[in-house]
């Protein structure tokens, strides 16, 4: 039995401890915002935060997150009406195409901005390794810079 929190809610899982967190989220908890793209840590579609840090949930055995706090895309916005600055920036630039990678892209960006509140293009190049098959990279780059601005404004207020 493994216990942890997801988006501040306590949950426990009593299946196989080697089950990737991704499948616990998707099949057991029916939280399908976190996506399956490769299953081997390559694409980032499954990115969630474990104690605030981005992690690829397809290669994260659920046993390793015991007593930790998980945040998924469903838990990122502060409320129903209010979005996270990264989500807002994504809407401003109409980033998604098929949209399948975007939960992962957003979760990776939140983590990047936590570590580096105003990343340069070079910083983005080294930190953002999530794959977008549709090729939304040009807008993702703009949206990351915009999210950095929005976050900075938010902090001043």
């Amino acid at each position, binding site marked *: 039995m493994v216990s942890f929190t997801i988006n501040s809610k306590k949950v426990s899982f009593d299946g196989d401890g080697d089950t990737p967190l991704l499948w616990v989220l998707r099949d057991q908890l029916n939280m399908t915002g976190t*996506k399956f793209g490769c299953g081997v840590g390559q694409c980032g579609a499954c990115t969630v935060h474990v104690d605030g840090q981005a992690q690829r949930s397809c290669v994260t055995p659920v046993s390793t997150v015991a007593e930790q706090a998980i945040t998924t895309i469903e838990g990122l916005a502060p409320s129903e009406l209010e979005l996270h600055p990264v989500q807002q920036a994504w809407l401003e630039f109409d980033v998604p195409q098929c949209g399948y990678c975007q*939960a992962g892209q957003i979760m990776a960006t939140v983590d990047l901005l936590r570590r580096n509140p105003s990343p340069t293009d070079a910083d983005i190049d080294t930190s953002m390794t999530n*794959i977008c098959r549709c090729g939304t990279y040009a807008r993702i780059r703009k949206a990351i810079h915009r999210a950095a601005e929005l976050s900075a404004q938010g902090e001043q207020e």
Partner: protein
Amino acid sequence: MSAVLEQKTFSRRQVLIAGAGVAGGFVLGIPQLANATTDSDRMIGYFVEIRADGSVVIGSNQPEIGQGVRTALPMLIAEELDIDWSMVSVRQMPLGIIKTADGFTWKYGGQGVGGSTGLTSNWEYMRQVGATARAQLIKAAAARTGVAEAECSTRPGVVVCGSLQTAIPYGDLIADASALPLPEESPPLKDVADYRVIGSRVKSVDARDIVTGRAKYGVDTVQPDMRYAVIARAPVLNASVKSFDDTETRKVPGVVDVIKIEGPEPGAPYVILASGVAVIATSTWAAMKGRQLLAIDWYESPNATDSSERFWAENREMLKGDGQVVLDDGDFAQAIGDAETVVIRQYQVPFVSHAPLEPQNCYAYVQADECHIIAPTQMPSGASRAAAAVTGLPRENIRVDMTRVGGGFGRRLTNDYVAEAAMISMQTGWPIKLQWSREDDIKNDFYRPGGLHEMQAGLDGDGKVVAWAQRLASGSKYYRRPNMPDEDLFGAELYIDDFPRRIVDNIRMEYFHNAIGLPRGSWRAPAHTANAFVVQSFLDELAHETGADPLQLRLDLYGASREIEYGGHGGPTFNPGRLAKLISFVADKIGYGNTLPDGHGIGLASHFTFGGYAAHAIQVSVVDGKLTIERIVAAIDCGLAVHPNAVEAQLQGGTIDGISTALGLEITVLDGQVQQSNFHDYPLARIAAIPSLFESYIVPFDEQPTGVGEMGIPSAAPALTNAIFAASGVRIRALPIAAQLQI
């Protein structure tokens, strides 16, 4: 396509059903069909629902694969309905087919997205749907106020009747309007000058759901009692299961069943790709674990010795002989014999995989006399046919729901995964969600055909191209089609009406078919990706050989704006002047002709794809064998841009797809097995490969829209390789680039 209308009585309203064939074509311009009456007194036809508060729910009949059709088509309806876009929400419609005496007809108009036709095939139709709904609201208002219809008009969301100047909101009129008989003909449509929604910077209707994780894709399907399935497919092309031992698999907690999947006969037309063993479990992970523990014995395959090396060697051999002449304009032999300069080059274009980010999946529940499919698919009618073929059920008893699709690129034109899911459900009795892994997807695809092209050109003393030949040895994607004669196989690989036909007088095309076990299919912009690379590289080589400027050489060939005959998809005409305009535009934007530092260069390319035009200018540096893309300028001429945000997105996405594929992607075969398996060895480009200097432009042309999904890709790769040559003198004649330069 003509439609025969017949009338039936249904409930208190009339239903009109069009008798057009359903075989896979698109039904155009039949608003009566779309507006066939429903039982709801909030709806006018199938597409338009108006709520009491004046908000409008618009049905979207096409699969959304990221091309923005769920926004663009409702925009057409909203425009003619005269409603503010902020009042619109969108509902996904299922597949609608109706049985007729001689087959099936569409209930909601043709459904399916491929060949960049989603918008163009619905352009008239959806506007007519909106205009008809608006006319019904006007009629209802006229009846209520006693003002003549001709004296009534609309402002967004309201009908205004004559001098009364009373504005009646649509929401107050809908109950009356929904009960009125529908007109036989569509009312006139708006003038372009009056558009308020079409061409505006509307954002994707689904963006908020996507960024909050709420948008539902096929993989997200959950149904009562559903079980999860994965399949262990034959690792060798066309191998089949001899026997299997599932003892260990069945010990995995959650595994409920293990069954054999019969594959297709080698070489025969097929509904699924491979033979295998399916594991059914209470979770995806249990099914995957169970699959790992299977011990399967396979029959030897006739393709067990297939290899890429052999395929390419055979192609080289073939090109030494004579192929099937598929185009022979003028007198090529004479013209090339008389030419001052003759240039011959070979180019190799590899097999590539679609790899949409959402791996294939499908929900199927087959019961005694009905079947329910929920699938991410580009062709819902194909899903219905696949399920019918597997189950033997009549198609009218097969319900197909479409989810949002995590990328198409042509992969989901084929519904093999739907057939698999239906097989598993039928054999086990469970409602099944079949899930492919990434490895399943990369190893079991309908790959873009690989081919070796030989280009020949003869130029006269003035550098004018007087003779042109393209000779191609490849594995045609038509190879496994039912009733396809060998002499038609070329048609999927060489588009004979492409540039420079009817521009260069003496032109010849030759085809050599090389069978290989690797399945082939439609990969975004099919043969245009290969042919644009080859032709646009070769033009640069001709310029280099004759000391001409690559831009000028193209402008001379393209010539002035004029329509020339084009019999292929995207015709009936092609205007090379639009390519000239676009390539000049991107050249100008990037500063073509300016002096650059050593090791830097600019490459240009342009191409006509399925009715639309695009051009790219790319600047790179090549320093110590290391390639860096520094700047990209892309432009598209899609006629009228209906949904500019989506046009730009498709142009950018196509550009990146072209670059990503050219840089590092190739599928190879050894001992009958696909050697790539996941993104570590099939490395799609990441953000670092795409420079921050990336401009995309929409260059308007006229009032007719063209599609946009495939136009952005073909000219990207040759612009890149032409830039590499300009920077370094290295001519890339075989893709991918990573085999020759550090990327």
